[in-house]
């Protein structure tokens, strides 16, 4: 019994999806490749990954003896069938554009080399091809058996290769996963979505409990084995016998966005003053109960590209902030920070920011709203500042891409930044990429389109009879290899 926030949207990987749905689906289906804990891409159903020198072809020898939930063996045929289905616009696959040439290099061919080998051919080299294949929101480009659809091609249910199958789905109550007894595991170490998997429990029930107080009570009452909890509850839960709290650093980026197109905030000095007024150490300490540490960069700390440059921030200097404000002629005009009461510390961050900004004379006001409305304002760029968060981006280029661009929802709007992001997307050589990322970070600090607070730490409370649960940076719970002691 585990806690879960909302209903899943469906069972069709990469199509009927949202972050929560992905989490569940990833227990049922697998792709050729998968993300490992360090966000490197590792083979999953593929035995290995063979990239050509020119970076234009990828060949995947498949593992032998992997069975679908319906008992059939997985072969290149199904991989091909799955791919063709994804690339059919009628399928509505979320990630089609990444492979069709619209939004990255086109996959010109996908061939079955032999029953246990497939090959992809790209129009141009891509640093992100493998990553895109493994993306959660693409449903890991899961390999499905044609039985997943009916004769007319309508979706029925995923017949995949994962360690679990779908059990009971009760909207508004829970989603249940059942152990797939014939699962054929890899033999390498469990590593994120890659590596060995074994369903140790017969069933996993994702209870839909959006209300934090309820979740906590249910956990305390022993009706949940694992649950995310608010940082403020850690002490209390740990104090009770039989409870364990696991702290996990994730790649979810918590930031306070500053609308660079706002008349007042378009003044870089004011933005800088805001950034300087905020003491990241204290803010993070408050929001995470001292469990997290600040991160001045959008790039997550566990990323291979996270280096010394990224760890350097603008610093906390109220005096300089005041001076800048003076220089900019700030007259105490109110600055509104949008926030909401969702779990995840949005509200607390805004609250602390407001208090800290007030210290240097910035007249910040909080406006708490419902998430949907805030999101709308985010998209239309109709705000001054807002407490926001971005879900896991496993590639540093994407970490910048998500805030950089010309669209109203993007805050990092300098041509230089856009150019750099463009480069980061195509260059795949690590050293060169690192340089670009470093440059981007510096530009980010210079421009101050957002205040990077930290990458979120999550807290999982579990009963001490739970073994093997490991949270990871992707902030996606994994329930294979998790067992319950009697």
């Amino acid at each position: 019994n585990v806690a879960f926030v909302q209903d899943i949207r469906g069972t069709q990987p990469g199509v009927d999806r949202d972050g929560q749905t992905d989490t569940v689906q990833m227990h049922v289906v697998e792709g050729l490749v998968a993300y490992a804990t360090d966000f490197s891409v590792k083979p999953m159903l593929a035995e290995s990954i063979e990239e050509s020198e020119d970076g234009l072809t990828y060949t995947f020898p498949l593992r032998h003896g992997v069975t679908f939930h319906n008992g059939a063996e997985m072969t290149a045929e199904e991989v091909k069938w799955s791919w063709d289905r994804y690339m059919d616009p009628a399928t509505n696959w979320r990630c089609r554009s990444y492979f069709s040439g619209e939004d990255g290099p086109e996959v010109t061919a996908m061939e079955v080399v032999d029953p246990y080998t497939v090959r992809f051919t790209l129009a141009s080299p891509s640093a992100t091809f493998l990553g895109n294949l493994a993306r959660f929101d693409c449903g890991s480009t899961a390999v499905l058996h044609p039985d997943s659809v009916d004769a007319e091609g309508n979706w029925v249910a995923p017949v995949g290769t994962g360690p679990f199958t779908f059990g009971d789905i009760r909207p508004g109550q829970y989603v249940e996963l059942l152990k797939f007894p014939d699962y054929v595991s890899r033999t390498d170490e469990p590593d994120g979505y890659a590596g060995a998997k074994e369903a140790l429990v017969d069933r996993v029930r994702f209870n839909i409990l959006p209300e934090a107080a309820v979740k906590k009570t249910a956990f305390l009452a022993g009706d949940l084995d694992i649950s995310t909890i608010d940082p403020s509850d850690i002490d209390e839960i740990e104090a009770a016998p039989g409870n364990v709290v696991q702290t996990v650093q994730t790649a979810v980026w918590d930031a306070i966005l500053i609308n660079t197109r706002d008349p007042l905030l378009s003044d870089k000095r004011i933005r800088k003053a805001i950034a300087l007024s905020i003491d990241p150490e204290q803010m993070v300490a408050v929001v995470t109960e001292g469990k997290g540490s600040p991160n001045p960069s959008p790039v997550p700390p566990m990323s291979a590209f996270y280096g010394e440059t990224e760890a350097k921030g603008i610093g906390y200097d109220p005096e300089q902030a005041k001076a800048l404000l003076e220089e900019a002629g700030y007259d105490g005009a109110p600055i509104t920070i949008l926030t909401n009461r969702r779990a995840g510390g949005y509200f607390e961050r805004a609250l602390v920011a407001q208090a800290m900004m007030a210290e240097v004379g910035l007249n910040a006001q909080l406006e708490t709203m419902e998430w949907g409305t805030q999101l709308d304002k985010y998209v239309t760029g109709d705000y001054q500042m807002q407490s926001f968060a971005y879900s896991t981006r496993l590639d540093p280029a994407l970490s910048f891409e998500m805030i950089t661009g010309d669209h109203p929802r993007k805050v990092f709007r300098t041509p230089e930044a856009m150019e750099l992001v463009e480069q980061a997307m195509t260059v795949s050589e690590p050293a060169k990429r690192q340089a670009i990322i470093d440059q981007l970070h510096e530009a980010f600090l210079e421009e101050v389109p957002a205040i990077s607070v930290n990458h979120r730490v999550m807290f999982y409370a579990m009963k001490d009879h739970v073994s093997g649960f490991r949270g990871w940076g992707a902030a996606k719970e994994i329930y294979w290899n998790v067992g319950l002691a009697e």
Partner: protein
Amino acid sequence: MTFLSDLSRRLNGRIGLTLCGLVLLAALTGLLWTPYDPVKTDFMARFAGASAEHLLGTDMYGRDLLSRVLSGASVSILICFLTVALAVTGGVVLGALSGFVGGWLDRLVMMFTEALMAFPGLLLALSLMVILGPSEFGVILALALAYLPSVTRLVRGTVLSVREKEYVEASVALGNGWLYTLARHVLPNCVAPLIVLATTMLGWVLLAESALSFLGLGVPPPAPTWGNMLAEARGDLTREPWLGILPGLCISVTLVGVNLLGDALRDALDPRNDRAA
């Protein structure tokens, strides 16, 4: 004055008046003065217990609880009053016209109130809150609209029954115009049930605001109301129950006061109970 003394002669009236008086006093204090800024956070002093510095302690963000309760009183009470005032004004105008004029106007108004009533008040308010955006103003407007139909119906019902009374006919017989008759003869007789409804409604508004806050759409924090304080404290019920008990108690006390007062008012306004002690 005789009315007030009549009220205070009853036990429920006395208790009701006392409790409501206390609440009003708190609201007034909160409006004029609080020991600290109620939204001022102090992360060094979170969950502080009662002390000389913070008489009632502080909350999860280190805000002074006494200040918040006082200031919350003024916001909550203001919201209650404005909401009720709005609903009553609108309801009286609509209900009176609908009941007195009758005909298609009546049918139209009734269809609208019927349609509005077909939504549970909280849901209606909830939808409106999402549309209006959470703010004191939004809460007031949403709840007023949610309660408008019941006031309209009450007034219309009373107007309809009063309209049948012979003193209204007598007024017509004297040659008085309908507006005069409505204002002079009909409406004053709707006042008693309306007062009772209004007092009850004050309580509902308080509860509804806290329910809205619980669902994430009440008066947006950090501005304190009892409702959102209670809602905010729900996660800390096991850790620091006091944070929830205090605003909860405030709400309950107000409701008890208002309801007792409403009861007493009903008794006092009912001529048949004249002699009741």
